[in-house]
């Protein structure tokens, strides 16, 4: 195939555009933006230091580019325990333990905040941090409603902070390879993308109980409806599988393979399928009330087929008319043609941001302005797919998404489900 000539006309066009786009940040001298001076260690704070949050805290503590200076959590034992452990790790006192994450976000000594709360708190806590000008690392999934995803994306843009999404698979080389192959057109024209992830579980005690003394249950609930405490409500499983706190694994686990789908398809709004029809199975008893298994089928605007099912291992499957790639966290499934496995991207084909450590990539973006490997845009789009799939399961109808309006169209009743009410006084804006 003959190479397309780059005419002076096209060069001038792209140069002019680049001039307009780059002229602005390029003119601001780096020294003016003191926080970006590479020698400065990023002062990091953690909101939510339970199971996942504690793990992230350990990870960041090991990175020399940052220093953890504050933690907050609804469980007093967790926040104080981690604050003490952090002091021990650094060999010096100084890590503050906040009962109220809003105080933490208002602390001027903090540069960046890691949000690892249950899902229903992700966006409200992140917004609080953003409004105080803090850079944020938000655990997946993004929000518990489409409206929350869009508000968060808008806030990141308006306040200009660095954003990293907790989809650490983008910092795995084999995932990057797979997406580069897809973007480079090695699979030919893409015909379908299929996603699988593990299923939810049934169970959980519904017997009302007294919350433990060190848990601020009212704060844990936050914007979620007030319901009696049970021993399984404020556990990891509860935070994954109770609809008041999350949409279930269709978002919580699905975020990972869906994020890779976004990455392979270009990270743009056109990577969100425009039609969803699905069936699910539902737990017949117990506290956990998110769908157990599901099979959602749909299509993208350009006609590609979309399918999202559980149960299954975590897999993103790209199918084109010249091949297919199945990729999951543990490695590859089928790759066709077999010879594709040994290929590397050729000069001129798109290359994706290289990140070998998700946390370091976030810190570097703050210190030097290098691009983070995730973005609020792609996080928003991939999380939307989870929500649109979930809405198709709950309503039992075909859901249609209009990317230009960023809304569900043609079904006013389903459009109501884009919004999740928040318990007063918590609100999004």
């Amino acid at each position, binding site marked *: 195939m003959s*190479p397309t000539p780059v005419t*002076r006309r096209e060069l001038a066009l792209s140069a002019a555009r680049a001039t307009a786009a780059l002229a602005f940040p390029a003119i*601001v*001298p780096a020294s*003016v933006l003191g926080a970006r001076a590479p020698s400065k260690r990023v002062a990091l704070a953690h909101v939510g230091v339970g199971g996942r949050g504690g793990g992230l805290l350990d990870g960041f503590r090991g990175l020399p580019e940052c220093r953890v200076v504050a933690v907050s959590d609804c469980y007093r034992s967790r926040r104080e325990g981690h604050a003490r452990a952090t002091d021990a790790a650094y060999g010096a006192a100084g890590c503050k333990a906040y009962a109220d994450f809003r*105080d933490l976000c208002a602390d001027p000594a903090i540069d960046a905040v890691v949000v690892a709360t249950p899902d229903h708190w992700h966006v409200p806590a992140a917004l609080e941090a953003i409004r105080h000008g803090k850079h944020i690392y938000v655990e997946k999934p993004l929000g518990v409603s489409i409206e929350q995803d869009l508000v968060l994306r808008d806030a990141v843009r308006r306040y200009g902070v660095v954003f990293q999404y907790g989809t650490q698979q983008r910092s795995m080389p084999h995932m990057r390879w797979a997406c580069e192959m897809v973007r480079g057109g090695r699979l030919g024209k893409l015909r379908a993308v299929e996603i699988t992830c593990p299923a939810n579980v049934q169970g959980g005690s519904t017997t009302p109980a007294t919350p433990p003394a060190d848990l601020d249950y009212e704060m844990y609930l936050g914007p979620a409806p007030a319901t009696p405490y049970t021993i399984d409500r404020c556990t990891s499983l509860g935070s994954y599988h109770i609809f008041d706190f999350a949409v279930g694994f269709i978002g919580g686990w699905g975020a990972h393979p869906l994020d890779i789908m976004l990455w392979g398809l270009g990270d743009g709004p056109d990577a969100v399928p425009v039609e969803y029809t699905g069936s699910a199975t539902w737990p*017949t008893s117990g506290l956990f009330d998110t769908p157990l298994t599901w099979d959602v089928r749909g299509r993208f605007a350009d*006609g590609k087929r979309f399918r999202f099912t559980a149960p299954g291992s975590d897999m993103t499957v790209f199918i084109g008319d010249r091949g297919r790639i199945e990729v999951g966290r543990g490695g590859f499934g089928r790759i066709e043609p077999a010879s594709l496995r040994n290929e590397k991207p050729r000069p001129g084909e798109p290359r994706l941001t290289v990140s070998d450590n998700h946390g370091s990539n976030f810190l570097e973006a703050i210190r030097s302005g290098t691009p983070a490997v995730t973005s609020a845009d792609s996080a928003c789009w991939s999380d939307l797919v989870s929500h649109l799939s979930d809405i198709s399961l709950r309503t*039992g109808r075909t859901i249609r998404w209009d990317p230009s309006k960023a809304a569900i169209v043609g079904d006013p*009743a389903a459009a109501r489900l884009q919004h999740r009410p928040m318990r007063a006084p918590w609100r999004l804006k």
Partner: protein
Amino acid sequence: MLSETIGFRRARLALAAALCLGLAAAQVRAAPPRIPTLLLSGSNNHDWRTTTPRLKAILEATGRFTVTVTERPGELTAAALAPYRLVVSNWNTFGMGDAQWPEAARRAISGFVPGGKGWLTIHAGGSSFYDWPDYQRLAGPSWTNGVTSHGAMHRFVVQMSDAGHPITHGLRLFITRDELWNRPGVQPGAQVLATAYSESAGGGAGRDEPVLTALQVGRGRTCGLTLGHDVDAMATPGFGLLLARAAEWAATGAVTQPIPRTPLGSAEADWAAAALRTWRSGDPNGIVWALEHDAGQCAGTPGVQAAAKRLLTVASDAAATLDGRRQALRLLTQLAGPGDVPALAALAKEPALTADVAALLTSVPGKEAAALRAALPISPPVRVGSSSGQIARAAAELDAASAVARPALLRRGLRGPDAARLRAAVAYLAVAPTDVVAGLLPAAAAMAPTGTIALLDAASSRSLPTPPAVLAGVLTSARPGMAAAAVRAAACAPGAGVARLLLDTAKRRPDLAPAIRVSLSAAPSPGIDDALVALAPSYSGLAATIAYEALAERCGAAQVAKLMALAEREPGSRRALLPWLADRGGAVELERLLHLHGKVPAGERGPVTDALTRMAGRLRCTEPVLRAVRRAQGGVRVELLTVLGACEGRAALAELTQAASSADPDTRASAVAALGAWTTADAAPALLESARSAVTARDRTLALRGLARVAPQAGQAHASSVAPTVVSALALADRADTLNLLLTALASLPSLETLKAVEPYLASPETTAAAVAAQIISVEALAGVAPPEAREMAVRLAASSDPALRSRAAEALVRMDLGPNVALGARAETTTSNAPDGQGGGAASAIDGSRATYWDETDDHGPYGIRVILPAPRTVGLLRLVAWAHHDYSPRDFEVVLDGATVRTMRDAQYDGDVLLIRLEPTRCTSVELRISGWYGKSPAIRELEIYERTRREP
């Protein structure tokens, strides 16, 4: 005897009905053939005399089955069973004692399903032949004495337990009144597709019981449905849906029946609503899911109001459980409408329900709902932290104050210095009504820093206009966060004065530049446009840049003249405004920019050149540019030549050609660069000439590279006229990389000249790859005509060590030997009324010589057909079919029809890759047709249908 007669007559009637329906079905073009079904009846400990006819009616009403009833299943033989694809058993051994069926029947039954057919057992059919394992496998869930039990007939919810299975995908649940078996035996390996929760209160085991199972047996399939105790139980739409879908799957392995809307019947919905009244968290969820499903089915239909009313009645029932009432409110999310607001207003008065009503109201459209929501008392801000006793007190003070006194309290708190009151006031701002925030705004500058910031942000988030006087005070503050908050609030500030405020701030605070630009672009007053035009020239550096960029973001096409004048006057504005003008300006602006271009100093010309280039390409007017080029001299002329490169037409080309042989090196270089970016191959001769007359090696390389870029635009159709130009250039190239570029260009111009010209370059390792590529492409392009040089080259390439090259050369050889593809230039049409599929094209795509396009029609709409009509009669001896992919979306069973006569019938076509060669007795004909009755995938797609005469030797 009587039952026999009835059975026989019914069977005859059924057959007759089936025949009539069958004929009707044949007239509906796309309907799949009916499944011949045998219904076993005549003995059962249940009332088969009423249930059998009902089962038959349900199945036949779908149009997918023709049902024959037998009351003598024991007399069946393999021959008697052979015509049927499905057996439905409403039969069990009741009354047979220990008797067995004769051997012939047992063998026939045992062999039926494994051979590829289907079996469906209803209810008690599994209670038979416990010592005959093959039958037990067919019969599905079985009654195990001592283990299985059932309570009285009662209402329960049946839920699907497999989201993806063809039977259950698209279904969610239904409510039925039936006998629910507890702990039936389930065959090993059987999938459970639907379950019902058996409550311990009714004597059940407190677990999900299987209601529908599916099992693969050999090449066939069986299903067992435990529902169907009597005709009343069979009256539920859900029962019929599951029965029919399970039957079709068992028979064929797929389900084609559409799924209708399945709202709950009103008796069932009332039952579910009644159950919701006594529901508590921890009780089985089936009721809640059933009502959620019903809500989904009723939303947006005329049934929505009845469904909403039913749930509202539950919510309003003070005697119902709190959990039930709260669930009812949640279930109303998709259903509640403005007419329900009065009922909700009454409910909101109950403290335990206020929050749930408030939440529901956020989903209800209309003014009434919004007004009610606004009127609901807001719960106090959350008190948090162990050290916040004081904050709690301050917050309580705010809550207790009257609406009249509260603003004053807030003001006091926001002013500080009392930290607790400040915190409480800031928290309260988040929920304060808009008029309270507006009332506090004028005093914003006098608050404590935290208070000011919170107040300004509260105003921004409500899009309240902040008075510029307030902003002026805060913008000058050096305290962290203050100026930034004021900049954000400025995005809604009224009046044009805010432009000057923001620009002054930009001068002092370059770190706020991004936010200032956003606010300047968003500020609502239209006066800002003019303010920016007037003010911008008095600023310099970053502030000026921001002003111009904000202008470019704000202004529309109506302000082109104004911004053009500004760009002419102010050099500092050009970086931001010229690209904007380039995208919107017209012929007048083009002239003005050309004029400007001639006047600005050399160092500032670049952006103007870029803008001109973009505009010239957009507007496509060459004349003004040509005039300017001819008038200009020196450096101006050199840059204008670049602009000319974006124009089109012979006049521009002629001017550039002349400039390419100028004495001045800069002019030459600019002209050559412009020629090298030309959009057609017409610039090729000029570039060759320039390369020939080049003085320096650099100039020559530039011209040759340009030639390599433009020549391929001639396309394959004109390859032979342009290729010689490139071939001549080969001799001029003195570097391997330039040579490779030219050779690659030749690869896009496949022709005989190319083939011969690249021969010398095969030997040198640096150029081998490009030369070989050019050769194989030329060979392939010439395969239709097959001159001897091409054939020779193909033979040589077919012996190459590179496997990809070998196979391409071999394929080209095959095509050369075949002679020309006479389908090219013919006419193609579809022989059915199918429409082309969105991805594929019409019949013409199959004979356009391009693999990239293909003929494809709507999925599952067979049979398919395509006909090629040759312009003149030919002796057709070979067809070469290139399908969409190997055994995927390709013809499998079809007839080859020449001039209306079938000459070849293909069954289970086996492709080599995606190619199928079909040899025919050479037949003189004008039309070649394929009648396709079977296909791989969901429809047959053909990339190319090539038709060859057999005048040359056999391949």
